[in-house]
């Protein structure tokens, strides 16, 4: 009732109107700034270099797909290979992060064994370690053992760095599942592994999806470890490909934008198709991690 009375006062409603416009404007400007680079890059990628340099902000007068054709068909750019490398690295890494995260999460929350605490502390330390202090050392170790510059090289650090958060999320989820479930399964004659994969794993699906979402983005976007561990252009992931392009293309901005858009495409498509679930997963991961 009281609110309605406020609404009827003319001064108040005028103030509300101004407030409404200002607040909406602030949020609209912010949202526009978030999507603007993408839109700008997209229509600029349809321009030729000369047209872009003459007018950096205008819409393309005669849109062309030449930049896309040049980048995707020129074998010197290794674009197809880079995309394949990124897809393979990301898929394999995410698969093992989720699998290992599930196994570790289960054992840490359910099984009392020597070393349970130790593994827990190791993972906790892994969360705290500033990851870039490992940049040079990991190169030294990998180089010394001859495992750098291989198709599987990047999966090792990606899986390792993804594990702590995966384990913490999954184990806190498993702790909510009553142990009676496993006891009943074992009375029914279900083996330990059978219980683990056929009964517990399906229950953990939501949290495993959350982990997979978070890790897909971080594996796809990871740059610094790829930079030091991969020298062979045929094994490079997309962030490295973008770096290589920018060196070659110099000031040909439409071409760099095209390359950026191609490498971002899988992420953009995934994000705008599943934004609700992705945001939910990322936020849950951040808060609980």
């Amino acid at each position: 009732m009281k609110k309605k009375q406020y609404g009827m006062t003319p001064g108040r409603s005028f103030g509300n109107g101004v407030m409404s416009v200002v607040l909406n404007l602030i949020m609209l400007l912010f949202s526009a700034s978030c999507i603007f680079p993408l839109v700008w890059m997209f229509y600029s990628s349809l321009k030729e270099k000369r047209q872009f340099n003459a007018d950096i902000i205008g819409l393309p007068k005669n849109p062309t797909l030449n930049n896309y054709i040049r980048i995707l068909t020129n074998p010197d750019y290794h674009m197809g290979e880079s995309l394949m490398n990124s897809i393979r690295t990301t898929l394999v890494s995410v698969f093992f992060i989720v699998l290992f995260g599930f196994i570790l999460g289960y054992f840490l929350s359910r099984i009392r064994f020597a070393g349970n605490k130790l593994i827990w502390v190791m993972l906790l330390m892994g969360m705290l370690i500033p990851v870039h202090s490992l940049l040079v050392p990991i190169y030294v170790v990998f180089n010394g053992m001859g495992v750098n510059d291989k198709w599987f090289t990047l999966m090792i650090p990606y899986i390792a760095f993804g594990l702590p958060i995966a384990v913490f999320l999954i184990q806190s989820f498993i702790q909510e599942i009553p142990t009676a479930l496993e006891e009943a399964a074992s009375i029914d004659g279900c083996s330990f592994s059978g219980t683990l994969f056929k009964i517990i794993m399906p229950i953990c699906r939501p949290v495993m999806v959350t982990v997979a979402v978070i890790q897909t983005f971080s594996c796809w976007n990871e740059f610094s470890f790829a930079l030091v561990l991969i020298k062979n252009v045929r094994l490079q992931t997309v962030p490295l490909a973008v770096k290589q392009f920018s060196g070659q293309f110099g000031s040909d901005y439409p071409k760099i934008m095209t390359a950026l858009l191609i490498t971002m495409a899988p992420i953009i498509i995934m994000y705008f198709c599943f934004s609700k679930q992705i945001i939910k997963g990322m936020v849950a991961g951040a808060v609980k991690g």
Partner: protein
Amino acid sequence: MLSKKPKATTTFGYLIVPVALYTFAVFIPLLVAVYYSFFEWKGGPNKTFIGLENYATLLHDTVFWQSFGHNLYLVLLCVIGQVGIAFIFVMVISTRFVKLKGIHRTLGFFPSTISAVAIGYIWMMIYDSRRGILNWFLEAIGQGDKTQVWLNNPKLVMTLVAIPLIWQYIGYYMLILLSATSAIDKEIIESAELDGANAVQRAIHVVLPMVKSTVAVCIVLCVSGNMKAFDNIFVMTEGGPGNASMVMAMYGYKISFAQQNMGYGSAISVGIFVLGMLVVGGMQLIPKLFAKKEA
């Protein structure tokens, strides 16, 4: 904990691979870094034991400490910029005036899903002196004399590389904070409003205390995230001009790979490790301090 345990060999079989892999990628490199930090080593077959000399150099290395300072500056800007602005936006978006909330969430969060490399290139094109949007904009509003080669300005460069980071993560923290504020009972805010608290008072005295543990989480994430700033700086400036935008990870990379000084690079890595642990570990205490006050 389960009462009936699997066989010890089963447990071992399940755990050995992930634990070995994790140790190999995280702990072995750390130990190796400590080992090589005692050597003069250029990456080749020859290395000479020099004891603590690398660490003595590190203590007096002005560039390294300058980089550390830049990391802290970045952290400060980003805590204020990312978490601070995100909180203001949360208050704005939660008012009943703002429409299109779903769109603001989706678009606001979007930049945080893009790689720091791509963000770096995008902003480099915005800052570019001849074809950049920033200078174009200044010309367009008649401030043409303010245009400059932005990333060559040593005084501004740290702030300029921080802006993309801030912009990228506002939406991320906004969504995290929104998940916390949406759990607050609407009646509490409404009754505060009826008691005559204005929007700012409500934000500071009603909402903030109720989400302070989430704010603390955001600050910890923000600090640890910015202590490891590397990708976008590598792309935008490589630490330049001079060392004006050098951060610790960038410096370690340069010494180790551009100058092939692996021994000293290892010592820098140990330095990054220690300083990073101190800063991030110190930040971890914040939620506990908050928790104590609550009790």
